[in-house]
């Protein structure tokens, strides 16, 4: 589209910007992502890696440009978010296969601290770390593949900016159930009792207490559905076999089947303990989602569309979604009257929602683009290897 071209009626929203303002936001994003994705002036010498880097950069900036231009947040966020999840799996598993020869984690690997650390373990490590000054995870604190200190630093930074928004803008697992939740045209299961939205808090309480009691990351050992697509303890006993069955069942049920049937992110909204934990950090963020009840026509589009079960009549009357809101922007995009909007904390309801939206999506997208770039690049690199050499492995 040329500069100054009229925005099509279908994409016209109060948040849509003209080309001048769009470029004013998009050009800094292009420069920052170029700088941060490349990691310095030296570009990769390997052609496959260079092509992956350029493709990831173009992909991110095309999506951001469209996000700013059309005023729609969710569909462009989701495209990158889903790409991160698939890129992560495509990078992680071949890496393991190259390093260890298989996806199974042996006791020896755990003793040597070779287990990559993921953010979901964070709530389980806090109490034992405070009480015993040890990290109850068989990973490396500094360095290595996905070190503990690195993940903590990222989590603190991301939580300050986004809070629960991590679940829609940062989590490299979340894109999987987001993908499956978008496959069906209409939900088969329309109603899920609200009481189930409290289940993640129970899972959180249980894994935090049991981890502190057993000094073991119990969620990783027993309940993580994503072991199915990452790594799992080697099956050498009945206990390990039961664990493997639990991982597979939870992955099939919560990440594939229920998201398809409900068109919601059931793993994130009904089970994930990290999401429940992350809800507490939403209080720290400058930008939040608010509902102008006076402008609401009770059409129910937001409530039906919310993937995290954060909107219902009570929340709409209250003027804000539940704590489980991950600021994906789907409700903001769906609302025909603009009653749901991003809002800077402390500003009045009459404040410019478009500015608040940009203040939110710019840092959020930048963080997501840079954080996920390695995974998308890695995934593209593996696909290029597959096309050119016939194997995902080097």
């Amino acid at each position, binding site marked *: 589209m040329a500069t100054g071209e009229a925005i099509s009626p279908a994409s016209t929203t109060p948040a849509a910007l003209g080309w001048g303002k769009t470029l004013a936001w998009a050009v800094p994003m292009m420069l920052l992502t170029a700088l941060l994705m490349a990691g310095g002036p030296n570009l990769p010498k390997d052609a496959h890696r260079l092509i992956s880097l350029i493709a990831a950069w173009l992909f991110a900036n095309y999506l951001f440009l469209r996000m700013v231009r059309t005023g729609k947040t969710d569909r462009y966020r989701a495209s990158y978010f889903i790409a991160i999840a698939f890129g992560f799996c495509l990078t992680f598993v071949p890496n393991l296969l190259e390093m260890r020869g298989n996806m199974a984690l042996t006791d020896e690997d755990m003793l040597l601290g070779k287990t990559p650390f993921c953010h979901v373990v964070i709530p389980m490590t806090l109490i034992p770390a405070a009480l015993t000054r040890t990290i109850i995870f068989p990973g490396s604190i500094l360095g290595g593949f996905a070190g503990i200190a690195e993940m903590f630093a990222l989590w603190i930074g991301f939580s300050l900016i986004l809070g629960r928004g991590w679940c829609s803008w940062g989590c490299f697992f979340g894109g999987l159930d987001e993908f499956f939740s978008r496959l069906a045209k209409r939900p088969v299961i329309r109603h899920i009792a609200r009481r189930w939205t409290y289940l993640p808090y*129970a899972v959180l*309480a*249980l894994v935090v207490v049991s981890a502190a009691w057993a000094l073991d990351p119990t969620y990783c050992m027993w309940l993580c559905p994503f072991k199915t697509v990452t790594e799992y303890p080697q099956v050498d006993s009945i206990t390990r076999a*039961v664990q493997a069955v639990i991982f597979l069942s939870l992955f099939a049920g919560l990440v594939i089947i229920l998201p398809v049937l409900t068109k919601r992110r059931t793993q994130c909204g009904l089970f994930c303990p990290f999401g429940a934990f992350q809800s507490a950090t939403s209080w720290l963020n400058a930008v939040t989602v608010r509902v102008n009840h006076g402008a609401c026509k009770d059409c129910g589009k937001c409530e039906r569309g919310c993937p995290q079960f954060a909107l219902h009549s009570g929340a709409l009357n209250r003027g804000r979604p539940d704590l489980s809101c991950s600021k994906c922007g789907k409700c903001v995009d769906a609302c025909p009257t603009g009653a749901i909007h991003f809002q800077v904390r402390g500003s009045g309801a009459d404040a410019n929602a478009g500015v608040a939206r940009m203040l939110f999506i710019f840092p959020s997208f930048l963080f997501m683009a840079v954080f996920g770039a390695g995974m998308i690049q890695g995934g593209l690199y593996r696909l290029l290897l597959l096309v050119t050499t016939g194997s995902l492995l080097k």
Partner: protein
Amino acid sequence: MLLSLLAADAGTSRNRFGLLGFFLLGRAVAYSTLGALAWRFGVAIQQWPAWHSLVLGLGLMTCAVLLLWYGFGPGPTEQKREGRLPPCVNRRSYRNPGLALAGGFVTGINPCAPVLLAFAAAAQSRALIEAITFFLWFFLGTAVYLLPLPLLGFLGRWDRLRLVARFAVGLMGAYYLYAGLLLVIRGTQWPLAKP
């Protein structure tokens, strides 16, 4: 968990500590009984480890089913709304000292792993009084952990917190079901079972 439930429904702090007293009394009676039984049966029970596992496993599985029903079944609020709340789970009935006493006795006599260990140790006692004294010390040692629980009763005021707690109980039930199943398998000497 039972004590948490009693504490959440007991009303005032005075009531909660009163119920704790009855609960502990029931527990002390249960432990004294176990001491006497341990002395009577001596080391006989140690001769059948498979029977051990089977009984313990079935006990855990029964407990698990109850916890699952309590955690994921319709709660008192839903049942009250639907008008099908049985009288025995009326909130007020939780405040009954007799229920606390019985609860203390039943949970005290429950053959959990530490109790079985203590039972095996007490079974080596030479005299009845020695076995009972051993169990009363065991009671004192474990009672310390129960004392702060009445102070947490105020958390029951929040419905959402009660719901989360119920789900957590249900999830624990799922774990007990698994643990019980493994013990039963071990008890029946299933060849694949590993220690």
